[in-house]
C-alpha cells in the first residue's frame, strides 16, 4: 500500500518491523519498529517511556516525509542493539 500511495504522489512513511522484506518489496521510506504486534509501541516499557518512544518514531516518520530519497531507504530511530531486550 505504501508503494501505491507513493505512486500516486503522496510521500508515505511505512512503519514496520520486518525491514528486509519491506525493502525487497520496494517501499521507499521505511521506519523500523520494535515489534510486529505493536508498530508504534513497546510494551516492555513503562507508559511514559513507551510514549516517548512513540514520539521518537513519529518524528523519524516526519523526517522521512521531508527527505528526498532515490529508492528504498531505512530511517532508524535508534542505534541497533538499543533497548536491551
Amino acid at each position, binding site marked *: *500500500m505504501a508503494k501505491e500511495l507513493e505512486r500516486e504522489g*503522496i510521500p*508515505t512513511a511505512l512503519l514496520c518491523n520486518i525491514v528486509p522484506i*519491506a525493502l525487497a*518489496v520496494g517501499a521507499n521510506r521505511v521506519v523500523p519498529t520494535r515489534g510486529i504486534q505493536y508498530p508504534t*509501541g513497546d510494551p516492555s516499557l513503562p507508559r511514559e517511556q513507551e510514549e516517548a518512544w*512513540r514520539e521518537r518514531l513519529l518524528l523519524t516518520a*516526519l523526517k522521512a*516525509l521531508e527527505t528526498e530519497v532515490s529508492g528504498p531507504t531505512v530511517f532508524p530511530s535508534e542505534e541497533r542493539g538499543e533497548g536491551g531486550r
Partner: protein
Amino acid sequence: MLRVVHYVNQFFAGLGGEEKADLKPEVRSGPVGPGRLLQSLLQGKGEVVATLICGDTYFAEQPEEACRRLADLLFTLKADLMLAGPAFASGRYGLACGEVARMALNELTIPAVAAMHHENPGVQAAAAGAYIVPCGSSAASMKEALPPLLALGIKLASGSALSPNVDGYLPRGIRKNVTADLPAAVRAVNMVLAKIAGRPFTSEIPLPQFDRVTPAPPVPDIRQATVALVTESGLVPAGNPDRIESSRASHFARYSIGGLRGFAPGEFESVHGGYSTDLANADPNRLVPLDVARRLEEAGRIARLYDYYFTTVGNGTSVQKAQAFAREIASEIRRSGVQAAILTAT
C-alpha cells in the same frame, strides 16, 4: 471427434481490412481462412464445425456485448474446443482472442486456447486464466503457429494435467498442488549439490517480481502539511461496524478522528487475524499513534492531522486489492489537501 470452433477477426476471415473492423460477431459453417489449415492438421481427430468472426474495432469498443454474442454462439454450437487466432502482433486482435479464450474457459467451461506473439498486449488474459500459446510476430509464420495451438487445445480438451514448462503456454499465475514425483528431501539434496557444483537447477517457487516506484517528492515543510494516518493493522472501532475481515480483507474503511486525542482501549480494537492482538488492544495507540500525533499537531510539528484514519487488515490480502485500496485512499486524501501519509504495518 472433437467439435472445434475457430475464432478469427474480419481480416483473417477474408472479409476485408480496417474498413470492416466494426463487424459484429457472426458465425460461418466450417473452417474459414487459416481454419482450413487447422482442419487438415486435425486429421480426423476432430472437425472445425464453425468459425466465429468478429471485427477488431467492434470488440475493442464493445467487449461485453461482443463476448455476450460470442458466448451465445459458442453455446449453441456445442463446441468441445475453441481456438482463437493466431493474432501474431496485432494488438486489438490479440486482446480479443485472449478475452474470448478466457471467457470460453472460465464462463462456459469450454476448453479454449489462443495464440499470439508473447509481447502482444492480449497476453494479459493469461493472468486472468486464459491458455495462450506464443507464436511469431507476423502472419508469415502461420504454418509454424498453428500446430502448437492445436496440440495444446487437444490436450486441454482431453482433460490431461498441463503445466506451462512442459506444454509451452504462457504462465497463468496459477499454482496447484500435485503429488511430487520425488520426495522433497531428495529434490532438496539434488538441488543443493547442483548449486554447489555450479550446475543449472530450477527453483520450484517463483520469486515475486517487485517493481520499483519512483519515490514521491518530499514534503517541503512538514510543519505546514496535513498528514493522514493509514494502517493495515486492522484497528477498527469496537464491534467492527464495517465488518473488515480478519484475513483476506475485501475492503478498507475510514473512521473519524476529528476531536479525538487518542484511541481508548475498549473503544477501538484490532481484528487482524495474523498476530496476537492483546498488546495492541490494551493500548490501540500502539497500532496507530493518534495520541502522540495529536500532541505533535498541537505543538505545531505538523499543520494538522486529516480528520479520518484509514484502516484495513493486511493478512493474506492480495496485492491487487491492497493496491486498489491505496489508490482510492490516495485519490480521497489528495482531493482533501493531504500532503503525506504515515502507514503502520504489523
